[in-house]
């Protein structure tokens, strides 16, 4: 065959991939409801009701990690503000959930959420209009992070802000949003954020069935986000991204618009983070400005680096593993959690720079990531 003659193998979307993808997806989707509903509650395998939203949270974090890996692992954009897009998506969903409370709030005001009544506001601010419709809120959860990322990314990348400088301004961005959302007169509930949700699409958010449905929706979103990211990274654009990561200026001399390519992938990643945030909020039951905290965004980078940046599977594994340990350690020995996190970051940088996936590859279990850990070639050229 001619394809063989050129020595190229484009079969990245073959039957083997789809089989693995669907098997993993089915396992994630089926296992939790079955172990939650069909297994006797005293069985050691049973998943109690309170664990379901926790698992759902891990899945949302995995999607957030994929979104960061897409820009960091593949395009070399280390955003330390990815949590901002996650939180914005979360706020959009939170606003919808607040509007669903209706007159069941403490003040019994059918039109205004409690915090607005408390602030003595007389009518709904214009930016809350439409959030009583789920479809509108869902659309906003995509558009708001996407639009902010596009504008922010376009300006930053056009001015050729790269490397550590970009990381710093993304931190500044999320910190600025944190401060803004803290203010009561911003109209997003200030310090307390948005909470006390009742229903989502007419279903009680506290019922186990609703939580299972939200978990399944999160897995579906993760699957979709993974496919979108994989489509991008295996396309020719994915190769351009790797080229940008390693020798950005060289890509310009080939005639590609580095600004356009980076703004595109930055926007896609922000939309994915927004979806993750929108699914996270109804499962956790609250969104407040602390989600914008710079430390949160840094933690996402640690998940990705532990799992293995430059591999989408690695990002997901890293997010779930680190958060599992976080849940366990913060209850078993809360005082050592931060040391553990710091240690993980040091180890993942020094001992296994390609993350767990890279470690497995070194042991011969998996194909290695594309030198995800190489230091980008100098600024020369």
């Amino acid at each position, binding site marked *: 065959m*001619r*394809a063989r*003659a*050129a*020595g*190229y*193998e*484009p079969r990245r979307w073959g039957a083997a991939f789809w089989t693995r993808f669907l098997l993993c997806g089915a396992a994630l989707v089926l296992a939790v409801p079955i172990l939650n509903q069909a297994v006797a509650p005293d069985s050691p395998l049973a998943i109690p009701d309170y664990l379901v939203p926790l698992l759902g949270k891990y899945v949302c974090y995995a999607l957030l990690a994929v979104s960061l890996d897409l820009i960091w692992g593949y395009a070399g954009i280390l955003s330390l503000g990815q949590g901002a897009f996650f939180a914005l998506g979360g706020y959009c969903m939170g606003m919808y959930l607040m509007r669903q409370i209706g007159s069941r709030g403490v003040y019994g005001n059918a039109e205004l959420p409690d915090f607005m009544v408390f602030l003595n506001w007389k009518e709904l601010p214009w930016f809350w209009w439409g959030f009583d419709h789920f479809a509108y809120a869902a659309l906003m959860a995509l558009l708001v992070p996407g639009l902010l990322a596009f504008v922010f990314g376009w300006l930053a990348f056009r001015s050729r802000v790269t490397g550590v400088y970009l990381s710093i301004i993304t931190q500044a961005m999320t910190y600025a949003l944190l401060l803004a959302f803290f203010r009561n007169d911003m109209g997003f509930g200030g310090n307390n954020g948005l909470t006390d949700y009742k229903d989502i699409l007419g279903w009680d958010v506290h019922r186990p069935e609703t939580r299972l449905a939200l978990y399944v929706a999160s897995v579906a979103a993760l699957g979709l986000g993974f496919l979108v990211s994989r489509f*991008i990274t295996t*396309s*020719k*654009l994915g*190769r*351009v991204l*790797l*080229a940008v*990561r*390693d*020798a950005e*200026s*060289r*890509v*310009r*001399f*080939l*005639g*590609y*618009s*580095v600004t*356009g*390519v980076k703004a*595109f992938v930055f926007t896609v990643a922000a939309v994915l983070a927004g979806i993750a945030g929108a699914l996270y909020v109804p499962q956790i039951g609250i969104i407040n400005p602390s989600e914008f905290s710079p430390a949160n965004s840094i933690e996402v980078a640690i998940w990705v680096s532990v799992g293995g940046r430059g591999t989408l599977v690695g990002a997901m594994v890293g997010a779930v593993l680190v958060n599992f340990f976080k849940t366990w350690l913060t209850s078993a020995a809360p005082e050592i959690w931060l040391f553990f996190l710091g240690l993980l970051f040091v180890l993942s940088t020094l001992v296994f720079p390609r993350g767990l996936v890279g470690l497995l590859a070194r042991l011969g279990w998996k194909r290695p990531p*594309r*030198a995800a850990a*190489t230091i980008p*070639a100098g600024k*020369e*050229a």
Partner: protein
Amino acid sequence: MKTAAAPAAAGNVLLYLNNVTVSFDGFKALDGLSLLVEQGELRTIIGPNGAGKTTMMDVVTGKTRPDMGEVYFRGTADLSRLDETAIANLGIGRKFQRPTVFENLTVFENLELALDDSRGTWRTLVSRLTPDRRDRIAAILARIGLGPHSRQLAGTLSHGQKQWLEIGMLLIHDRSLLLLDEPVAGMTDRETEETAALILDLARHRTIVVVEHDMAFVRSLGAKVTVLHEGSVLAEGSIDHVQNNPRVVEVYLGR
């Protein structure tokens, strides 16, 4: 400011630099450099270190903005106002002094990125590797002798092979003007000969500007030579003409 009319009137001139000055922290890398390259010409540029050869290429490809002077392509495109991407898309290709290939991509993928396709972000995303594109890549691979290495990461190639891959990347995208910065640096004698033959072959269909230190190589190209010194043109003519120029001997060859 002169208008574009002046260089446009020059007719057959492809690349026009007039009185170009670039300074870095007071050091004049280019000092009133004027240079004309005609359509279809093969030109070699020599000069001692710091003469401004690479800076000249930086100005033409949009990496550096001139402080003063005019840079026109085809008489109409004002290169001093365009960025690297726009200039590359006008059909100006560049090979760097140090070979710069994408080390984490395979040889094949390096050539794929250089293919003469749409550079739009969306078009790149949905681009398919059609048999026609594969054939074009395979043809170039054969020409630069890297066929057996097509699936190898470019970072694992030898220095000479990287130079050839970079030349291949220029070949696959049919540019009208190629700027080659020391294309034979670090090559063995045989590789140098092969490269000279390749450049002469390429020069039949396009305009090429070669910057080179290796005098034997410059001689083997047999083209018009421009000698740069301290940011401006010192002499111009055949290799024998400039080698006999006493000022050239003094500043460059004589050392």
